[in-house]
């Protein structure tokens, strides 16, 4: 499963994308993020405020309770500020 990070989330984590293999039992975006936070302090720092983070599964906006089974690409990013 490919993870993508954008804007300050990318800067805090230090990479724009990475491939991960979450262990069994990680079924939602929220669980995925909680699992990432246990890996290294930089994730804990990046995901400190999940209310400020948005998610897209396979390039479609989703929410933190969305199931991640079958997802090829999960993107995590701050609220958008284009235009």
């Amino acid at each position, binding site marked *: 499963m490919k993870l993508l990070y*954008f804007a300050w989330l990318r800067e805090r984590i230090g990479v724009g994308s990475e491939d991960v293999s979450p262990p069994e039992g990680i079924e939602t975006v929220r669980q995925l993020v909680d699992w990432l936070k246990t890996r290294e302090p930089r994730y804990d720092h990046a995901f400190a405020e999940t209310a400020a983070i948005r998610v*897209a599964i396979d390039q479609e906006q989703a929410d933190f309770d969305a199931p991640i089974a079958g997802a090829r690409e999960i993107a995590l990013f*701050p609220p*958008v*500020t*284009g*235009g």
Partner: protein
Amino acid sequence: MTVRVQENDFDPTTELDALCAGRDDIGAMVSFTGLVRGGDVSEMTLEHYPGMTEKALEEIEREARNRWPLQGVTIIHRVGPLAPGARIVFVATASPHRAAAFEAAEFLMDFLKTRAPFWKKEATAEGARWVDARESDGEAASRWTREKS
């Protein structure tokens, strides 16, 4: 329908001419151009999510066409570093009537600002900072839902 994400600048006349080229049933074209504001900002850098951006813009465009009788829509968004005064974004609509062209252009901008995956980073004398999402943009976008309900 034209949706483009690009580093290069664009030319409003060229885009408006393309929107009405070869037809004479268009009565009204409205365009919005967003510019980088200076002040304490020396440079603005636009990051985006390639692949999803185009999908999001196409979906926004489809929603606008469902709501208004549009004969053409153009959405262009620049990415990369931009100087103060530079064009960032361009949205144009074509319709037989002006009210539809105006409303659709405003709708496109409101939705682009809240749904398209772009992020702005400002360089200032005190360092760089990511622009915070504005609550007013969320409110601007949600009024289109309220109006329809």
